[in-house]
C-alpha cells in the first residue's frame, strides 16, 4: 500500500515540478466569434482574437512578454504525390502518406519569431508550421521525404490555409493583446483549436485554449449530409433536378416564343 503511494507520488512529481508555483502571469482569452458558419455565400471570415494577461504581482523585470496565437483545423492524414516525367508526360509517381497535418494552421506572433519562442519550446509545444505536421515515415523508395512535407506547407501557404504572421499580435502595456486571423473560403468543417501562449525570453510561461467550431449550415449542411448518409437519394435528387430544369426551361422558352 505504501509502495503504491510512493509510486503515485513519483508519477505525479514531474507534473508538479512542471507546474511549480502558480504562474505569476496568466492569459484571459476572448474570441470575436466561437463559431464559423459555412453558408452558400461563404467567402472566408476574419476572426478577432483578443485577451489580457492577469497578474497578482507587478510586471516582472527582464525581457518583455510576448504572445503567440495559433489556430489549427482538424488534422487528417494526407497523401502527397510527386509528378515525374515518364514517357514524355508528367505522371504522379512517388507518394508519401503524412500521418496528420492540420487542414488549416495559422500562427501569429507579437514580435519576430526568434524573439518570441525558442526552438526547444517550439518543439515541445508544436507551434511553428513544420512542427504542427506529423510525418512518421516515407516508404523506402522515397529518399527525400522532407521535400514532401515542405510541399504541403508550400501548397497550403499559397492557398492561404497555412499562415505564419510574425509581429501581427498587438500587445499594449504588456497586458492587453489582440490579433485578427483570416480564415479563407476553402475551409473544411471541424473543431479549430485556438491556443494562446505567453512567452518571456523564449520560454512559454502560460497557455490557454479555446475551440472555434467551423460548420456548414443550412442548405450546405443538408446537401453534404444527404450525399454522405443517403447517397442513393442524393443521386436520384440530382437527376430529378437535372430533368426538371432541362425540361422546364425548354417548356418555358417555347411559351415565350409562341
Amino acid at each position, binding site marked *: 500500500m505504501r509502495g503504491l503511494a510512493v509510486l503515485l507520488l513519483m508519477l505525479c512529481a514531474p507534473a508538479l515540478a512542471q507546474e511549480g508555483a502558480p504562474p505569476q502571469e496568466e492569459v484571459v482569452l476572448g474570441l470575436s466569434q466561437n463559431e464559423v458558419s*459555412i*453558408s*452558400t*455565400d*461563404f*467567402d*472566408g471570415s476574419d476572426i478577432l482574437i483578443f485577451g489580457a494577461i492577469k497578474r497578482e504581482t507587478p510586471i516582472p523585470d527582464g525581457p518583455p512578454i510576448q504572445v503567440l496565437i495559433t489556430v489549427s483545423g482538424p488534422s*487528417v*492524414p*494526407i*497523401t*502527397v*504525390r*510527386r*509528378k*515525374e*516525367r515518364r514517357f*514524355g*508526360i*508528367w*505522371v*504522379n509517381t512517388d*507518394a508519401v502518406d503524412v500521418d496528420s*497535418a492540420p*487542414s488549416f494552421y495559422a500562427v501569429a506572433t507579437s514580435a519576430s519569431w526568434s524573439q518570441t519562442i525558442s526552438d526547444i519550446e517550439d518543439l515541445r509545444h508544436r507551434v511553428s508550421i513544420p512542427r504542427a505536421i506529423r510525418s512518421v515515415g516515407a516508404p523506402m523508395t522515397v529518399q527525400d521525404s522532407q*521535400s*514532401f512535407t515542405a*510541399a*504541403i506547407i*508550400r*501548397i*497550403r501557404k499559397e492557398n492561404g490555409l497555412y499562415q505564419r504572421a510574425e509581429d501581427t499580435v498587438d500587445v499594449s502595456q504588456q497586458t492587453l493583446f489582440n490579433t485578427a486571423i483570416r480564415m479563407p*473560403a*476553402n475551409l*473544411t468543417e471541424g473543431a479549430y483549436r485556438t491556443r494562446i501562449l505567453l512567452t518571456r525570453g523564449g520560454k512559454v510561461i502560460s497557455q490557454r485554449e479555446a475551440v472555434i467550431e467551423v460548420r*456548414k449550415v443550412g*442548405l*450546405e449542411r443538408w*446537401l*453534404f449530409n444527404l*450525399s*454522405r448518409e443517403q*447517397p*442513393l437519394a*442524393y*443521386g*436520384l*435528387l*440530382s*437527376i430529378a*433536378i*437535372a*430533368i426538371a*430544369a*432541362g*425540361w422546364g*426551361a*425548354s*417548356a418555358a*422558352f417555347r411559351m415565350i416564343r409562341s
Partner: protein
Amino acid sequence: MQIYLPIAEVSVNLFVLLGLGTIVGMLSGMFGVGGGFLITPLLFFLGIPPAVAVATGANQIVASSISAVLAHLKRKTVDLRMGVVLLIGGLFGSGFGVYVFNILRELGQVDLLVRLCYVLFLGIIGALMFVESLRALRSSKRGAPPKRRQHGWVHGLPFKVRFRTSGLYISAIPPLAVGFSVGILAAIMGVGGGFIMVPAMIYLLGMPTKVVIGTSLFQIIFVTAFTTLLHATTSMTVDIVLALALIVGGVIGAQFGTVIGMRMKAEQLRILLAVLVLAVCGKIALELLLRPAEIYSLSAGGF
C-alpha cells in the same frame, strides 16, 4: 458573388459558373452536341477537383439532353429498339468505367487517365472532323455528292435483330459494343459521348442520319443518369449546387445557340467545332507535356 460548393468544398464565383454554362450551352445549341467535352475540362481550369468535375459533368448532360430527346420523340426520330440495345451496352460500360475510375482514384492516377482520354479522343475526333469538313467544303464547291462508306463485315455477325425504324437487319453485337465503349467514356470523361456515337452509328452501323441524333440522345440520357447515380453512390463526387449553376446557364445559352446555329452553314459550323475541339485538346496536352508549376499534389479524404 462567391458561392460555396458543398461537395467540391471550394468557393467559386457564381457568375463565372453561369457564364461557363451559358457559353457551353450556346455551343451545344449551335453544334447539336452535349457540350460535356467542353464543360469538364473548363471545370478543371476553374480549380474544381477532377473527380467532382467528371461526376457533375455527367449530371449536367442529363439536363441539356432531356428537352432535345422529348422533341425527337415527338417527331418519331428515335429508334427505340436500337436505343435500348445501345443502352444495355452503355449501362455495362458505365459500370465498368466507374469501377476503373474508383480504382485509379485510389492510386492517384485519375487525373492522368481523364486528361489522357481527353487528349486522345478530342485529338482524333477534332482532326477527323476538320479533314472531313474541309473535304465537304471543297466537294460542295465542285458539286460532287459525298460518298457513303459500307462496312460489309458488320453484316456477317450472328444474333441478328431487325431495327424497323432504322430499316436495318444487323447483328446486335456492334450496337452493344458501341454502347459499351460510350458508357465507359461517360463514366471516365464525364461526357455524353455523342461525338463518338454519332459517327459510329452512321459509318459503322449504317443507320440513317435522321434517326441518329435522337437515338444517341436517348441512350445518352439514360447512361449519364446512371453514371451520375453510380458516382453519387460510390465516390460521392456529384455536386448538386455546381450542377444547378451550370444547368441554368446551359439551358439559357442553348436557346441562343440554336438561333445562331440556324443562321450559319453546316460546313462552317463543323469547321468551327473542329477548331474548338482541337483547341481544348491542345490545352490539355500542353499541361501534360510541359513541366507543371507545382509537381507535388495533395490528396486528403476523397480527392
